[in-house]
């Protein structure tokens, strides 16, 4: 309570600036405090528990075809994991389209192991003690690109086209609240409540601020989430209908965001509010 008063006394100074975004000194302090302790939390991230689980799921013979995922090609050749995550989404000749990491893993689970898309899409997000297998697997795969540079290719025409489609989805305003992704993520230095909003339209460090920490262990609920969930929940709050799990729309959106993150270091599975 005492702190609240201190904080608000400082915020009070900004009253004369009505019409300007409120950026009282205390808010910067709050952000700095969050960043500092985010680092403390990252020193030992429960996400590592899902890396272990994902590795097991990658190697185990599973599914109707009793096969492992070790022959899964994530873009760098069958079974090559090192650096694969930071080069996704990318074009795959066997499907003729650009696919993101989890979409490709789901594709492998279907083609190599014989799982059905409908079953995987039925309950695709973590809740309580339940973690869908693709989430654990993508966490493991992502961890094999830790501290590597994001280098999502734009050499194939389909990759450039998918980027452009993703960009159009990003700026598409619709729904009862007239929101697009850009409503919250199209300018620098904004916050929702106390959460900083990365500007995904600004290639480089800004755009990468989210991408470098997903998949992420989410403190709310204490569950592991991938970018599939992040996109899904953004559309929920955007007041849109629900996007299909591991759909091409999500892959396009992720292509836009990932390409804009190129050149930045991927930090590995992160920890999120």
């Amino acid at each position: 309570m005492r702190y609240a008063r201190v904080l608000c006394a400082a915020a009070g100074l900004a009253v004369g600036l009505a019409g300007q975004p409120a950026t009282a000194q205390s808010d910067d302090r709050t952000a700095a405090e969050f960043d500092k302790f985010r680092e403390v939390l990252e020193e030992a991230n429960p996400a590592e528990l899902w890396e272990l689980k994902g590795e097991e799921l990658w190697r185990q013979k599973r599914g109707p075809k009793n096969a492992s995922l070790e022959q899964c090609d994530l873009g760098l050749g069958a079974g090559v994991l090192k650096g694969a995550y930071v080069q996704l989404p990318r074009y795959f000749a066997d499907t003729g389209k650009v696919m993101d990491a989890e979409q490709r893993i789901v594709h492998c689970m279907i083609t190599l192991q014989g799982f059905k898309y409908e079953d995987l899409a039925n309950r695709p997000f973590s809740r309580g003690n339940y973690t869908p297998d693709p989430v654990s697997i993508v966490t493991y795969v992502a961890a094999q690109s830790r501290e590597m540079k994001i280098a999502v290719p734009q050499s194939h025409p389909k990759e450039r086209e998918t980027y452009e489609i993703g960009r159009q989805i990003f700026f598409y305003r619709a729904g009862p609240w007239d929101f697009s992704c850009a409503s919250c993520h199209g300018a620098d230095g904004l916050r929702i409540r106390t959460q900083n909003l990365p500007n995904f339209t600004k290639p480089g460090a800004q755009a990468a601020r989210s991408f470098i920490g997903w998949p992420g262990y989410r403190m709310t609920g204490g569950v592991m989430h991938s970018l599939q969930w992040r996109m899904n929940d953004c559309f929920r709050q955007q007041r849109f209908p629900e996007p299909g799990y591991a759909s091409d729309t999500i892959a396009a959106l992720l292509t836009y965001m990932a390409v804009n993150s190129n050149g930045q270091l991927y930090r590995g599975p992160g920890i999120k509010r």
Partner: protein
Amino acid sequence: MRKAIVFAGVAAVAAGCATMQDEAAYREQAVAWMKRDFHARGMAKTDRLNQDELQRACTQYNNNPPEALVKRVEAAEMAGIKLPADGKYLGDWKRGQRIASSGRGMTWSDKPGAAGGSCYNCHQLSPQQPSFGTIGPSLRGYGKTRGYTAENRKYVYQRIYNSKAFSMCSTMPRFGHSGTLNEQQIKDVAAYLMDPASPVNQ
């Protein structure tokens, strides 16, 4: 020099080196993908993907449509605002505070009738709530600073009802127009901003 080249490169990527025709074609493709890939859930039906004229123009012109279009659309949005029949624009600021603090309403996980304004997501309001967003301007001390006038009361009601009547491509939702908040709820939020007793004005 080097910086300039990098910047030009960045701009080219951001613009995607796409011409206006390309843009329109990509947008058409994007819409087709979304219509194929999205499904209805809860109250969020797929018709939400259909843009109205305002949404289409704001998307097409990157939130900066031609002047004549802005004038016409803003006038139409203004004409659609239903003012309270009793001529009173302010309700109960305490109820307004609850609405302002709630992020509920209109998502596929909300029950119909869940009415939140999500005001704190974007605006600073009461000094007692340090957790506020900065997407919109600070509204701290709103009535006190702007004056508790009849004109301002009406403006606040209208602005919450339909922000786009004043700024066509505003980020702020059209709370009345979209049916998110009803007349009484808009009055309550207006009171939160305009009642001298509201914490916003302390």
